[in-house]
């Protein structure tokens, strides 16, 4: 058994004597004997070397790939080592939520910088300290934008996991919503316009769409605003290094996940949802927020602010129940962005775009067909009737995780700066043989 409590037997004896009880059992005198459980049916504790051996064995039962062409909400990007190193600094890793500002300026400043990065990237004015995931951030944004008697419009072209989470949260509050058809894999402005009415309070769509397709955010936002509805832009923040940001498009809220910024795919988490909005929307922004102020000697200081919106003060009247967030993931995103810089980030985004477009060309030559016309960022859908399983298997045998099988015929491919031209050509060649 590994032991993490530092007491010697003699410490325990002295402490029991000081407390005035004969043994630790006596400390549970308030617990009725019939409520106590016997010995837990768990294995005996392991030594540290045994623990890591067991976990290594489990990890070895997972297959990792040299090359990953799958995304759908989780993307394998290059992570500079400084991101891992910084996030493992124990003063960050093992710190609590920075309620004691004097003892947590490092954490608070790092979050303030994160908020600034998110605001700049999304083009919004303010951002919070993080949410659980893109899907949860989207759900919160919809809940905050809802007005009784109104309904919310949701693009069918969003990630299916976000759609499922939205359904859960909106149904739970009996909020009316309507799903708008995805034509060409995206939400077209004309489709939105047809469904808009003064009874719509908010519209949610993602940039890019699940299919990878690029939306005309500006046209969508303008359409929503014409009937007085808020526009909530979900999306991959990396895309905004190339595409107009939600803020530039005039959106009211921007949500999504910072996973592409230095977070490993790690079987789905932890990642961090981001939530950004306009200055006017700040009081309806859930979650923790760091603000700048001065201390009693006039020095710049950072504190958690606007706390009355939160659960620990407003209880059942709080904006949201969120307490713990994904702070360390937000820190990773900040370190990543600091290391990459604007130019570096733009290059990553360009490489994503270029690799995906190069791949489409190669794959078309190999016999796959492009499904949607709309231009795309780093993901696209292909058609190859009846061949999805075969393609996945053949690529896996060559160390390549294929695109995601949407069904037996279609696949969703994703590319990042880690997919070189040679990998892509190899994948195309393998598929040509299969097809």
């Amino acid at each position: 058994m590994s032991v993490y409590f530092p007491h010697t037997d003699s410490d325990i004896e002295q402490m029991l004597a000081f407390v005035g009880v004969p043994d630790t059992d006596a400390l549970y005198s308030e617990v009725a004997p019939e409520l106590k459980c016997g010995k837990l049916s768990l294995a005996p504790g392991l030594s540290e070397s045994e623990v890591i051996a067991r976990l290594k064995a489990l990890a070895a039962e997972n297959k990792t790939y040299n090359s990953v062409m799958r995304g759908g909400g989780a993307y394998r990007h290059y992570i500079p080592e400084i991101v891992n190193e910084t996030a493992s600094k124990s003063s960050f890793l093992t710190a609590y939520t920075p309620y004691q500002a004097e003892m947590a300026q490092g954490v608070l400043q790092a979050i303030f910088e994160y908020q600034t990065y998110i605001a700049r990237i999304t083009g919004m004015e303010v951002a919070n300290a993080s949410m659980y995931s893109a899907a949860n951030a989207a759900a919160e944004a919809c809940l905050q934008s809802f007005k009784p008697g109104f309904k919310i419009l949701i693009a069918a072209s969003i990630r299916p996991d976000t759609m499922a989470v939205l359904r859960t949260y909106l149904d739970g509050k009996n909020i009316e919503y309507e799903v708008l058809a995805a034509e060409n894999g995206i939400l077209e402005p004309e489709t939105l316009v047809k469904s808009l009415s003064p009874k719509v309070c908010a519209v949610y769509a993602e940039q890019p769409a699940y299919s990878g397709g690029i939306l005309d955010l500006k046209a969508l936002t303008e359409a929503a605003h014409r009937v007085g509805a808020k526009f909530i832009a979900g999306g991959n923040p990396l895309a905004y290094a190339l595409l107009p940001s939600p803020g530039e498009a005039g959106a009211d809220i921007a949500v999504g996940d910072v996973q592409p910024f230095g977070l490993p795919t790690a079987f789905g988490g932890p990642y961090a949802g981001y939530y950004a909005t306009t200055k006017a929307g700040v009081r309806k922004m859930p979650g923790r927020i760091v603000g700048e102020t001065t201390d009693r000697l006039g020095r710049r200081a950072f504190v958690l602010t606007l706390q009355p919106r939160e659960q620990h003060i407003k209880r059942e009247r709080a904006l949201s129940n969120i307490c713990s967030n994904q702070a360390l993931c937000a820190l990773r995103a900040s370190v990543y962005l600091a290391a990459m810089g604007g130019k570096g980030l733009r290059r990553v985004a360009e490489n994503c775009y270029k690799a995906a477009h190069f791949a489409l060309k190669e794959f078309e030559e190999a016999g796959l067909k492009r499904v949607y016309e709309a231009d795309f960022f780093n993901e696209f859908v292909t058609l190859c009737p009846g061949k999805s399983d075969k393609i996945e298997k053949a690529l896996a045998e060559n160390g390549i995780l294929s695109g995601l099988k949407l069904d037996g015929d279609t696949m969703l491919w994703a590319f990042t700066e880690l997919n070189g031209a040679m990998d892509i050509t190899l994948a195309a060649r393998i598929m040509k043989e299969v097809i």
Partner: protein
Amino acid sequence: MKLLFELEKSRPSEYVNAFTEDVALPDFGKKIELELPELSEVEVARHYSALSRTAFGVDDGAYPLGSCTMKYNPKINEAAAALEGFRDIHPLAPEKDVQGALKLMYGLGEALKEITGTDAISFAGAAGAHGEYIGLRIIKAYHAARGETRRKILVPDSAHGTNPASAAMAGFEVVNVPGDDSYGVDLDALARLCDEDVAALMLTNPTTLGLFEKNIAKIAETVHSKGGLLYYDGANLNAVMGVVRPGDTGFDVVHLNLHKTFSTPHGGGGPGAGPVCVKAFLKDYLPYPVVVSDGKTYKFAAPPESIGKVNAFYGNFSVLVKAYAYILALGAEGIRQSAETAVLNANYLKKKLQPEYPSAEGVCMHEFVVSMEKLKNLNGVTALDIAKAMIDKGIHPPTMYFPLTVHEALMFEPTETESKASLDAVAEAMKQIYSEALKDPSAMKTKPETTVVSRPDEVAAAKALKLTYDL
């Protein structure tokens, strides 16, 4: 300290080479170019190194933060989560490629079910509050399936703020249950409030006062007799794991905070993990997906009456790896001993702090609450002032002004990983602070003196709202 946005421009490391093939970039119509600081890696490293020196983690000193269970986070857990086979697997990879991950989730689930005395589990919750939301939705679905619309959730007035907030978010009405003289649930009030419209009572046990709710059997009977369910907020499980199982004491739904009880680090506010455990009769309502096994292979499945999806993928997987490593290391004995030691530490510190820091009589569980009301009435020194003075002594302050039912509250939770020597040092520092407070009350108002900032102006922060560098 300068912000990243105030540092001099330097040459960034070029981590990524340009794509080798010629692919034209169209005009995307982006009119406002993205501007981020351009910094060399050494500047970034020094920046964060400096920031980390003004942060304070469990590795930096005593952290007796009540209700937060700031125990030591074993390093091996981090190494386990960083294994390539866990870190570099895609959430949408074929199930046959991620058998190790699924097996880990399944194994952790079995262990947590055993520890809580429950029958089924979901790992979708990213944090405690998220777990509460999930648990309450399960309760709602259960009543709905029986053709009942129960609107009310009972919450003791000493409960964590997340309890009422989660209930409201799940579409319930919150009814507060007053405490009795010994800070337990007032049984008469409970009996009065329990009716056919009550969906559930949410409870932490031990309570937020650090006391075991000894009437738990009666409470369970009262709630169940009216068809309501009992919800366990696992924030305080560290006091009783291996000793009492919530499921054995009448709880139907339990959420756990792996970042408290099972030693995964808090990360400056997250990520945590809030798995939800339920009794067998509720298992069909769990959010999807859940991990199932035929004994050989593992896969995801959707429970038949699932409340739906509540998180993007499957929860905070890396956190689960760390908690699993912890449970493997401790085993059955270690888990019980951790709880017992946590309770011993709390009782030891509680007694060491008397009489200056008065608390409820008798034994406590893993935490205790002292009230500084007397001192405040005597010379105006508040719980806040004491907390701030602790910072100068290198001790993280306890939770302040919670629970709301105690005036000038300071809530201490030393956890089992604090040594006797450390507890002695904390007690000694607290005595010093107290005598300083008696001698020179006004000097307490300017503490801490040794930190990079002291007493930030929170009113100005809330009014001027500078929330980004650019705003």
